[in-house]
């Protein structure tokens, strides 16, 4: 789901001015950059970091929702949730493949995730405590992700832009599915409405943080804009998300947990209260309640599966050897 605004572009390049100018001219002409095209090293690095971070987020994002598959309240919800978490795994796969076109392997990227060197979207360090959280995650977290991702469908790097088109279609389905869970809760009993409000209370602010810090603090954002990897500022996207979400909350009969939220006639949008960026940085830096657990789970899964991957490799080699010797014998 979830590329987020904290990714900065690495503007360092060793290419000469003519090369950079020619590259920029292609970008400005809205030409897609393809895997074998010449590109500045900084552009390549920025994309590898952003795409792999996005892929890791999909993979780590399977955990909070996966936590509810065995407890989903109906068979229909169980099937939809399992399919959704499966889609996230699929998004991880396309994204790792898109990043591989830039010369990095899935194994290297996985290693970076497991060692803690690579980041993933911080939203997944928040726990999914109740069934309503599955609704709120779909509605708000996928909703915020879509705001970022729709724009990425026009990203200057072709394989990433194309992967995002498919991902966005699936994400918008997930978002509607999450909102539909919220509708069912809000049309239900008092305790169901309380579950829905509580989930909104806990996920509202972390969802706003998904867009990343305001531009002044996001150091490399400008270079990403120039290279058209990014096309809108973090704050612009955050505002779009708020403007879309407030009427949705009203329709549900829920209250956005921000006493300072109010309509601003002049800007035709909402003003919002102060975002707790200390909390954001604390969780990004590893001190959310789930950070350790999420990574430890991934490491455990990697370790537990090692013998299976080794066996598959060994079997493939045996097969290849047998085929080769059969061919020699036939000759």
């Amino acid at each position: 789901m979830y590329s987020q605004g904290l990714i900065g572009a690495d503007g360092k390049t060793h290419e000469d001015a003519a090369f950079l100018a020619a590259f920029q001219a292609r970008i400005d002409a809205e030409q897609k950059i393809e895997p074998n095209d010449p590109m500045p090293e900084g552009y390549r690095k920025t994309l590898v970091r952003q795409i792999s971070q996005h892929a890791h987020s999909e993979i780590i994002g399977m955990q909070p929702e996966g936590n509810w598959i065995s407890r989903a309240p109906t068979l229909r919800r169980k099937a939809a949730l399992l399919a959704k978490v499966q889609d996230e795994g699929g998004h991880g796969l396309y994204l790792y493949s898109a990043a591989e076109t830039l010369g990095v392997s899935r194994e290297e990227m996985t290693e970076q995730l497991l060692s803690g060197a690579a980041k993933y979207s911080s939203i997944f360090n928040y726990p999914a405590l109740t069934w309503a959280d599955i609704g709120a995650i779909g509605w708000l977290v996928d909703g915020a992700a879509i705001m970022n991702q729709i724009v990425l469908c026009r990203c200057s790097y072709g394989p990433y832009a194309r992967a995002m088109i498919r991902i966005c279609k699936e994400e918008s389905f997930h978002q509607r599915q999450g909102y539909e869970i919220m509708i069912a809760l809000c049309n239900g009993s008092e305790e169901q409405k309380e579950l829905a409000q509580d989930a909104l209370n806990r996920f509202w602010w972390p969802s706003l943080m998904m867009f990343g810090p305001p531009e002044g603090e996001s150091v490399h954002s400008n270079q990403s804009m120039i290279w058209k990897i990014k096309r809108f500022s973090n704050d612009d996207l955050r505002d779009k998300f708020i403007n879309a979400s407030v009427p949705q909350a009203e329709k549900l009969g829920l209250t956005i947990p921000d006493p300072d939220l109010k309509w601003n006639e002049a800007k035709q949008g909402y003003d919002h209260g102060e975002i707790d960026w200390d909390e954001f940085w604390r969780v990004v830096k590893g001190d959310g309640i789930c950070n350790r657990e999420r990574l430890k789970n991934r490491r455990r899964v990697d370790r537990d599966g090692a013998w299976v991957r080794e066996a598959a490799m060994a079997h493939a080699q045996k097969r290849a050897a047998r085929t080769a010797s059969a061919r020699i014998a036939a000759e």
Partner: protein
Amino acid sequence: MSGTCEPMMTSNQTLFSYVLRLADDHLILSQRLGEWCGEAPTLEEDLALANIALDLIGQARALYAYAGQVEGKGRDEDQLAFMRYERDYQNLLITEQPNGDFAHTIVRQFFISAYMDPFWRRMEGSKDDMLAAIAAKASKEVTYHLRHTSEWVIRLGDGTRESHERMVEALDDLMMFTGELFEMDAVAQEMLQSGVGVDASDLKAEWQHTVQTILQEATLELPKAGHMQTGGRMGRHSEHLGHILSELQYMQRSFPGLTW
């Protein structure tokens, strides 16, 4: 159809019981496979296991919905899936066995798929239109499950020494639950006689052939058939089922009667 009320009732009850137990098999197995989500040895396998689990949930839903219709007491798929007590579930014991390592999960799924593949194919000829329709869809799905798990049995059996040993252990652990697949109790007999059900005992030879062919390629052997466990069809389960149900039923038990 019978002209009197009495045999009709009995027959409906038997059909209900027959469809319900099949539904239970698929629900419990899908619940187990769902536990793998995000935990598989490769990303590709994560997607594959989720696919199989989704097929099984789909089959369970169709079967529960039909069971509710046959029963005629207004119970829907969720009431049947979530709101019964442990002794009322009639799934085969093998479906509730823990995932264990990947070898155990693959062997469990392989044993069951090698059985359900001919089972659904025969069920396509059922005199019961609904069961025949469910079977037509399910048999395409289970063909894939059998192919997928067969490939893994071969890879793991003929992979490394460790994977081979793990497969031997999984086969040993699960073999005693395979006898139950082929049992024919009174319900199954009645369904067979009325042209609705499948003769499970008659599937044994095909199952053995399928399993042994794959195991041979995998350099593995089917363990000797010792004492076979039984009881699932009578609601006598292993200790594992209670824990599965306490997760499965958590929401419906905590918030009874609500719409989700």
